[in-house]
């Protein structure tokens, strides 16, 4: 057996033994390697006091069997020494724990054709489950624009923003990935089975938790660090003040990823968390997919044109000419000297200005004098 395969088996075993994101295991693996750690633990040698916690799980370990079962279900286990390994996850090694979760995952269970090393330019779209139809529409819209520009979309698989983000990306035929807090063979929530099946067939469903495992609160917190770490930037669409999406946002900040927030009505509770992030300066305000691309893409790749009003003919006039134009009456004509008085400018200057304005089609000379032409009204 090659070293890589032994490493893979050891990492599968570790996934069974440890809770995801346990800081002690992350440290031990970095220190002594996965193979040696597993050998010691199975040999009942306690290291750093972890054995007490996991003793009951040791008997359940059977990595060969597990990999075999996964292969039959079309599921692979990607480890750091694989070519497919998303390098950006290694940033987690140097990051302080958040809610006592941290560290590079031992490996990732993946179901679906999308390769994880394609996620270098991906964008996370997250938000709370108690989202509004506004948030869902915006999330779908952002995801569609981002995915169309070739950036994969990453999210969870919950109701609300997560689901909307996947739908938006899928609708434009884009790449999209769901990161779960349970085994990739499980559909949670059950109502999203078709969505998850679809992602498993065309995008990817990813988890660090072994197959068959159910999601817990702690596993969601651990999962959030993966979403933040896998992507170039995280867009928070709607998040109430206490929500998992804010946890993901914190990870994004900690990992120096781009953090973006979509505002909502100031009266809307589901937007409160996002507003807080923007107010604190943690997140940058975005209102469209194009603005997201500008911030997560390469420098100068997707520059957004600032929204501006239509230019009108009178915008191009010099200040003095504008002053004269303002003094020209709308309906009844006025003579140049009366216009000069109104404008507060010299008669000679007003005369020449009126001629310029007439050439520009903004004023017309009638029998009674000068008045505005139709073009000046536009």
């Amino acid at each position, binding site marked *: 057996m090659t070293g890589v395969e032994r490493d893979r088996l050891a990492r599968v075993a570790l996934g069974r033994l440890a809770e995801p994101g346990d800081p002690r295991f992350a440290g031990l693996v970095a220190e002594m390697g996965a193979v040696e750690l597993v050998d010691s633990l199975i040999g009942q040698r306690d290291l750093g006091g972890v054995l007490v916690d996991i003793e009951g799980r040791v008997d359940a370990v059977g990595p060969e069997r597990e990999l075999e079962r996964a292969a039959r279900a079309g599921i692979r286990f990607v480890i750091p020494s694989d070519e497919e390994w998303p390098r950006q996850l290694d940033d987690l090694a140097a990051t302080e724990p958040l809610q006592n979760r941290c560290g590079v995952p031992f490996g990732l269970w993946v179901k679906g054709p999308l390769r994880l090393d394609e996620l270098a330019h991906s964008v996370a779209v997250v938000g709370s489950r*108690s989202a*509004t139809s506004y*948030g*869902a*529409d915006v999330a*779908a*819209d952002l995801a569609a624009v981002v995915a169309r520009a070739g950036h994969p979309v990453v999210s969870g698989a919950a109701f609300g923003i997560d689901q909307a983000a996947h739908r938006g990306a899928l609708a*434009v035929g884009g790449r999209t990935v769901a990161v779960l807090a349970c085994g990739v063979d499980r559909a949670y929530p059950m109502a999203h089975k*078709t969505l998850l099946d679809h992602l498993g067939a065309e995008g990817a469903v990813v988890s660090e938790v072994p197959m068959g495992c159910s999601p817990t609160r702690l596993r969601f917190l651990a999962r959030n660090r993966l979403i933040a770490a896998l992507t170039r930037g995280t867009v928070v669409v709607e998040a109430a003040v206490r929500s998992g999406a804010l946890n993901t946002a914190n990870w994004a900040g900690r990992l120096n990823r781009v953090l973006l927030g979509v505002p909502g009505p100031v009266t*809307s509770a589901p937007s409160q968390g996002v507003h807080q992030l923007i107010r604190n300066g943690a997140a940058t305000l975005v209102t469209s997919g194009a603005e997201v691309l500008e911030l997560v893409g390469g420098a100068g790749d997707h520059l957004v044109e600032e929204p501006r009003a239509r230019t009108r003919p009178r915008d191009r006039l010099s200040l003095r000419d504008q002053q004269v134009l303002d003094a020209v009456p709308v309906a009844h004509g006025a003579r140049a000297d009366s216009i000069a008085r109104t404008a507060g400018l010299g008669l000679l200057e007003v005369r020449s200005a009126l001629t310029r304005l007439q050439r520009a089609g903004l004023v017309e000379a009638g029998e009674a004098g000068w008045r505005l032409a139709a073009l000046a009204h536009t």
Partner: protein
Amino acid sequence: MPFATAHTVSLHGALGHLIDVQADVSPGQVGTTLVGRPDASLNEARDRCRMAIVNSNLEWPATRRITILLSPADLLKRGTHFDLAIAVAVLAAAGKLPRLALEATAFIGELTLDGGLRSVPGVLPMVLAAAERGVRRVFVPEPQALEAAMAPGMAVLGMRSLAQVVAELRGEEVPEAAPVAPMSGSRLLSWRGSQRLEEVDLADLVGMADARYAVEVAAAGGHHLMLSGPKGSGKTSIAERIPSILPDLTSEESLELTAIHSLAGALEPGDGMLVRPPFSAPHHDASKASLLGGGSGQVRPGELSRAHGGVLFLDEFPLFRTDVIEALRQPLESGEVTVARRDESVRLPARGMLVLACNPCPCGDYSPQAPANACTCPEVKRRDYRSRITGPVADRIDIVRHLAPLRPHDRSDRFGVHESSAQVRERVELARARQAARYAGESWRLNSQAPGPLLRERWPLPDEAQRLVDDHVYAGRLTQRGATRVHRLAWTVADLQGVDPPGHEQVDAAVRLRTGAPLLLTTLERRAG
């Protein structure tokens, strides 16, 4: 005794009065007088009746003095359908018909000079009124026999000519007669726009989860609805699909609506009873009379009454004339239109759902989602347009929804809601059944019609839910009137979900519906599951 009475009906709006047509044929100065406040067209009945009788090979008592009284005499009478009753009364008074045969029988129809019986508008409401007053048998023009037969417990005899009527009354064999040309102006087109509406379905629409839910709630509780959004956001498309999720009319509504259409002369001979809720979408140039009812002579029901039990859709609502909009206020409150005339006051049922649609500005492009700077309206015009949206009628709207334009990827979304109208209608029917059970014995059937004070007293919100309403009132986001509307809406949301009484979640959804805030996805999903 040279005297006889035949019955017919005089219509005032949808209200019918049984009229005794009394004829006296006795010696005196030769001539025919018609008394009892007939209008011009009715006054001409004397000539029509005389020629019809003569040309039917019957004898007109030409050497006598004929007096015809339409009783009660103080009621103004108009229309041409009195002809048959007048002719029959004259014949009976002259002893040509057994008077007994005229008892508990009503006669409706206009006579042609050759004795043919022509159709008239409003046969159904007339027959209904007659039935209420104890009439058991009615003679009507043959093409309208089907319409008359909708009145329960009535023996309907459809006849083609006066000769047939006379034969039937005498108990003789009814002679053959040529069919009479149908009522003028009916069905010049073989295809009508209303047929298209029978084929539209909610399943045709993509996305619009929010608006779908809003129309479902509106349909379930009979709430008025306002849809706003830029051009092409699907306001009209979703509005014209509302009838498809409404349940069939109740038998009472169905009779009322059919009677209104009969009155408007809009009922085709083969139509039968109208059982599906109507959809009416008048143009914004519409006059007050065309919307509310009126016209010269006989009062014609307006679009509001023709949408009774269904949907009145006012597209581009701010462009309607201000006096027309103002006039809608009273009917919306009372569920009926009152048209006052010099001599009479006519009441017509008008209890439909009002659906208003408006753009963000006159050109309809003022939206961040529209192509950049597409709006060409000056700010003054935009402000003027918006100021027309708030007003007394808009204040009576329960649900406000803002629609976003369709985005390109909506069409290819495989995981969106694509429910058909039939699926939604099932839930609407269930919610309506729950309301019917709760309001059994009351004078209203739907949450939107429940009087506010009674609602607060007998079907209050739980404390926690009421607190949420109060919070919004204190924060200035809801007026007191708005709070009552939220209360009604909360019940409808609860009825759709099968919850009793409405709690925090249902009230929150109601507040969002009322204030135009986006709905929580949990509310939308709860409905689907």
